């Protein structure tokens, strides 16, 4: 039976860069627990003769030719940006991190 702790919810929230209050930690832990339990029931049905699958459709090797297709203009790209500078998305500085 899955069980998710407040600490795990807090950790997930941090990874997702979400600010979650103390009260929300309890609330989400309970909700996530319900989701995990529901999903776990699928596992109970799966017998050894049912291979795990990640795709519902039995397709493979769907490839595209290496041909250029028109994309968006810079104007279109930046239309939804909260802030723009020099044709680029402007975002808050990133503290002490670098990819």
């Amino acid at each position, binding site marked *: 039976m899955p069980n998710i702790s407040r600490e795990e919810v807090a950790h997930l929230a941090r*990874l*997702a*860069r979400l600010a979650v209050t103390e009260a929300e930690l309890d609330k989400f832990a309970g909700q996530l627990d319900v989701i995990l339990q529901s999903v776990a029931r699928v596992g109970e049905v799966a017998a050894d003769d049912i291979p795990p699958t*990640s*795709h519902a*459709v039995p*397709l*493979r*090797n*769907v*490839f*595209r*030719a*290496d*041909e*250029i*297709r*028109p*994309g*968006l*203009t*810079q104007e279109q*790209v*930046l239309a939804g940006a909260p802030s723009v*500078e*020099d*044709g*680029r*998305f*402007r*975002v*808050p*500085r*990133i503290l*002490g*991190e*670098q*990819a």
Partner: protein
Amino acid sequence: MSLSTADLLDYDEVLERFDPVLGLEVHVELSTNTKMFCGCPTAFGAEPNTQVCPVCLGLPGALPVVNGKAVESAIRIGLALGCEIAPWCRFARKNYFYPDMPKNFQTSQYDEPIAFNGSLSLELADGTVVEVGIERAHMEEDTGKSLHVGGATGRIHGAEHSLLDYNRAGVPLIEIVTKPITGTGARAPEVARAYVTALRDLLRALDVSDVRMDQGSLRCDANVSLMPRGATEFGTRTETKNVNSLRSVERAVRHEMSRQGAVLVAGGEIMQETRHFDESTGTTSAGRRKETSEDYRYFPEPDLVPMAPSADWVEQLRTTLPELPWERRKRVQTDWQLSDLELRDLVNAGALDLVAATVDAGAAPDAARAWWVNYLSQEANSRGVELAELPISPSQVARVAALVAEGELTNKLAREVVDGVLAGEGEPDAVVESRGLAVVSDDTALYAAIDDALAAQPDVAEKIRGGKVQAAGAIVGAVMKATKGQADAKRVRELVLERCAG
């Protein structure tokens, strides 16, 4: 945080106490026309955010489709590295929040890389051969480019804000990861550099990437750890990024060994972290603490179906592999009849391609080799440029070699012609013409000079006529002087003897 030299352990002392372990991750951008999952162009240097679409921007509802050419390149790279090709594999989502990845995940491969378990053999400058195991080569996509603006230094820690250009986001990448490289001791930095060099040459031969480290199409992350000498359990490693040249690979590894040595000797612990290499100081500084792979919450990419390269397809791609660098070196050694040392000098000088092109342009292998490995290498060294960057082409060198072979130029004159080409005076024939360098091969002109010399030194002339052929040297010398060294001394000697025999 900056490091003073006091925080570094003397390199020899590092080696007395520790064995280094290396792990190298090389990212190579494929030179496909389009991105990994969309039809946006990949050309370098376009205006920001002009090569993007809903797919690579991660807009809701956009569906990726795999670039078949990129898969082909990945398989060819895998085969060239002696890897097994997965008969079935998938893409996975690597979840992390960082503005350079607009989707908030990177589409990558996790536990099902397309190629795995290979090896690459490298030769160090002194001929030592090192076999590096390849753990895996997997497909993924590049991130966008961030520009950090403002702050005291413009570096990220002082940055006020960041500007994002997503042209690079989604460009096909192959990440090639080595198995741990152990037992290299003092030569670890050299091995790291030789590995990246060998991989670059291989990828270039495969024609799958521009492999330009300066433009970021080939990037190396160096994992370095130290363990007490004789130990078998690896120490904690750091991963140094931002290593943008072959020389930097060597410097970064060496620096990290000395830095970690100092920390360990002082009783400290190595943090598992990403570090950044600073080209100007040759040092590394702490970056972000590494997230664990659990934190990336990898899961199979639901928007892309699995890949199952058929054995037929893989074998067909194997037939497209070009002559690989080590096969080529072997062939060249046989074709040009080189000793091991001559081959090594040729390879170490980075002259193989240039010599081959010069031979293709008609020069004899020995002559082509002598020009590039000896004369032109020195010239490149003194100018501080790569051999290939010298303003002389293989066909120009071949022309000079031809003029020497035909007796039109002596070696000394030929060097002057090459100097003229390097100085921008035009094609070899034009330099010969403008500098007046042609060998005086006209026998009539030589007879005149010889007669003058014989007349000027009648006693010598008498000795030669009397059978003392060695006396001819004085006359030959005088003729060479009179023709300003532009005569073929051997021919002059023949003519002197002929003149005195009659």
